[in-house]
């Protein structure tokens, strides 16, 4: 039976046809049909709903139904939803390109465009796809400086390529009240500029509505996370990492709020033993893991290996809801606080504190830091994090790898290291049992 990825691979097998395929409304009509046919195969119905949402939005972007704005990860995308625009995350697109198996050739094109292999492979992939004209043309590019040095730099280059403005946020490291006001001021300016560039009327009521949706999303995801404290875990963390689209693109949309609410209900039913297959938890849960950063998208071997060996991602760093409730009456201040409150843009002790807290809350057996090669923010602190968490008694594995680029690493080596780590966890469990 055809799956969605198989269908997309088939549609895009000839790179010369990419632009025609991606910009044709027929593609998305067909995709919708494939999605409906495969609905029963998704591990969570919310994943199916997210697929529908993501493909609809991607279609809107490629077909040109609304002005497209590119948004870098962790940019408060509520600003774009509040103007009725079509946000597009090239980072998520890069992950999907890798998932479909087109990552290597796309990255090679990025490297030919002058991007060194020492930078983030997400960005090389984006640069390659952009240089080939395979991404939807942006009316503006939105980037934030706080959690990634590379994204705003890449967006600056691509803004020049597309002749579109870069609207970037400068986020201070120290979050004093003055600093919050400084960011809030920039957010308002970006919102106004974005309205101007895209020919939209800056409507404060619409922005408040987007912030309200974002707040509903936050509250529902927090509910999801509370439900996930159960042992055994009611949901696969590997599946949860798939919801990154909602975190990066969806916040501020009605759809993301509804999908999050549906997800929470679905997990509630599972917890109550009413899941659609009678499943109440992950079938073979031997080790509960806290997973830091992302995972390889170019193949699923590592994650499959973890799951086959009885490992469960009880919680992921990316699923953690770290920000406080948003106030639709104060959209800019609220979004400024949200943006600045990320625990990874603080002294590394804060990331350590949050991870230790999650490790306790989700009763994990060990912590895996997947060190994406090009990510200075996450992997730059990995050794200090490992030492500190180990001192607190957690087994920690710093697993060097890459989310998109599988060319430079031997997957076997990564699996061996993971296996050795799981064995340590097993020994610790046996030790406890004795």
């Amino acid at each position, binding site marked *: 039976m055809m799956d969605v990825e198989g269908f997309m691979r088939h549609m895009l097998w000839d790179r010369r046809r990419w632009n025609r395929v991606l910009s044709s409304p027929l593609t998305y009509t067909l995709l919708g049909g494939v999605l409906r046919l495969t609905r029963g195969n998704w591990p969570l119905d919310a994943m199916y709903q997210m697929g529908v949402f993501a493909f609809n939005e991607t279609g809107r972007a490629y077909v040109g139904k609304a002005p497209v704005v590119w948004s870098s990860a962790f940019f408060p995308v509520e600003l774009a939803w509040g103007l009725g625009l079509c946000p597009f995350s090239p980072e998520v697109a890069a992950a999907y390109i890798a998932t479909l198996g087109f990552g290597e050739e796309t990255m090679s094109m990025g490297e030919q*465009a*002058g*991007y*060194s292999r*020492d*930078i983030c492979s997400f*960005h090389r992939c984006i*640069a390659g796809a952009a240089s080939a004209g395979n991404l939807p043309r942006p009316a503006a590019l939105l980037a934030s*400086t706080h959690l990634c*040095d*590379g994204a*705003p*730099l*890449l967006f*600056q*280059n691509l803004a*020049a390529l597309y002749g579109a403005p*870069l609207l*970037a946020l*400068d986020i*201070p*490291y*120290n979050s*004093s009240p*003055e*600093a919050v006001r*400084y960011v809030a*001021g*920039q957010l308002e300016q970006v919102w106004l500029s974005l309205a101007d560039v895209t020919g939209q009327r800056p409507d404060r009521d619409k922005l408040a509505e987007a912030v309200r949706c974002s707040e509903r999303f936050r509250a529902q995801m927090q509910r999801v996370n509370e439900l996930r404290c159960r042992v055994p875990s009611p949901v696969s963390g590997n599946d949860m990492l798939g919801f990154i689209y909602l975190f990066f693109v969806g916040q501020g949309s009605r759809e993301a709020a509804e999908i999050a609410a549906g997800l929470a209900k679905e997990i509630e039913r599972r917890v109550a033993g009413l899941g659609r297959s009678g499943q109440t938890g992950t079938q073979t849960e031997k080790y509960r893991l806290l997973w830091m950063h992302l995972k390889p998208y170019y193949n699923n071997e590592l994650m499959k290996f973890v799951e086959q060996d009885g490992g469960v991602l009880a919680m992921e760093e990316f699923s953690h809801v770290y920000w406080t409730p948003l106030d639709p009456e104060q959209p800019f201040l609220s979004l400024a606080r949200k943006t600045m409150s990320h625990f990874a843009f603080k*002294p*590394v*002790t804060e990331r350590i504190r949050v991870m230790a807290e999650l490790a306790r809350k989700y009763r994990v057996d060990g912590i895996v830091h997947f*060190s994406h*090669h*090009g990510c*200075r*923010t996450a*992997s*730059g*602190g*990995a*050794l*200090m994090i490992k*030492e*500190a968490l180990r001192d607190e008694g957690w087994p920690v594995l710093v697993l060097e790898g890459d989310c998109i680029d599988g060319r430079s690493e031997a997957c076997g080596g990564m699996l061996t290291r993971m296996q050795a780590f799981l064995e340590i966890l097993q020994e610790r469990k046996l030790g406890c049992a004795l």
Partner: protein
Amino acid sequence: METVLGWVCAYTPEEVFAALGIESFRLCGGENQASAVQYLPVNLCPLARACLSEGLDNAGTGASLSGVVLTASCHALVHLANAFQHARGGNGQFFVHLLDLPRTFGREDDAACRAFAAALRDLAGRLGEFYGAAWSDEAFLTAIDKQQQVRLLLRELYRMRRERPEQFRAAGLLEVVRAAGRTRKEELAPVLNSLVASLQDAGSGDNWDSAQDGMQDGGPAAAVFLEHLRRQGSSLGPRLLVTGNSLPPAYFDLIEDLGGNVVGDDLCQSYRYCLPDTEQTLDGGGRDLFMTLARSYLRRPACPRMLAGAERFAYLQALIRECQAQGVVYHTLKFCDASIYEYALLRNRFMEAGVPVLYLETEYRDAGLEQARTRIQAFLEVLGPPTEKY
């Protein structure tokens, strides 16, 4: 052992340290990065790793670090601050401060200046508290004045180098600027004054011995600087501008050994250090010295992390014209995002403008010199000799 405050980025306001009477020392890192291994991963900026090693080993400082002030310029420096805190900061006896440095995006931004001024004021307060030093506006004005004197004198050396590159050793000039970030400005200014005066007197001929004779006022330090600056042998090879990220001294020597003439640079350990023009007056109306300093720093030509690509290209083009450079060496440190991404942008612009560019990547150590030799040699051959004698 004397204690000093370490710093790295050229946007660090030494004037604040001097106003508080705190000795400061610019960490530049060296060949040895071993002490950083347990704190920072190998895929992080080698300059940050080298500076951590230098700071932890007290290597080359001749003094012990009592703290560091690092700018939040990039995640490598953020993690450098984390590593210092992790390694030394546990007992509260070591000062670690991460100074917010707003990005300008290539425009004059009052809000960014105000934010930087607030960050500077906060830094001064925290330093005063930690070191038990009292703040005085008068001392601040003196510090600004001395710093400006040093910068102007250094710029004069750069001007002379631009006119007579065959006589000046680029690595020597780099060493003088590095020393400027490690020396009290009131002590350095007379030394540089003497050095500049004697080099001016020596004129354009090969009169460096007479420069040495005419430099009694500068004392032994000036003589050492002069020796560093003196280029052995001369060349009429191509005139080059070096930009991107901090190039280790051995690579400057290599370029010159192969016949190139470095006539200008845009590097943070080198010419960029001399750039801010600080107003030596109180800020109009508000009498806010921190605002004055913040404006001065943020107004200078942007570095790659400032996200001011178009303005930077215009600035580099002007620099190329001013230096009459025939080609550009763009240096990136491995894993330095700011310069690696910028290169992808500037490469095309330079190409369109017909400016030949050599991309050089190093690990901030001499290990790759031989690979670089072949690339530099080929580049110089392509450029050929200068079109006229300067």
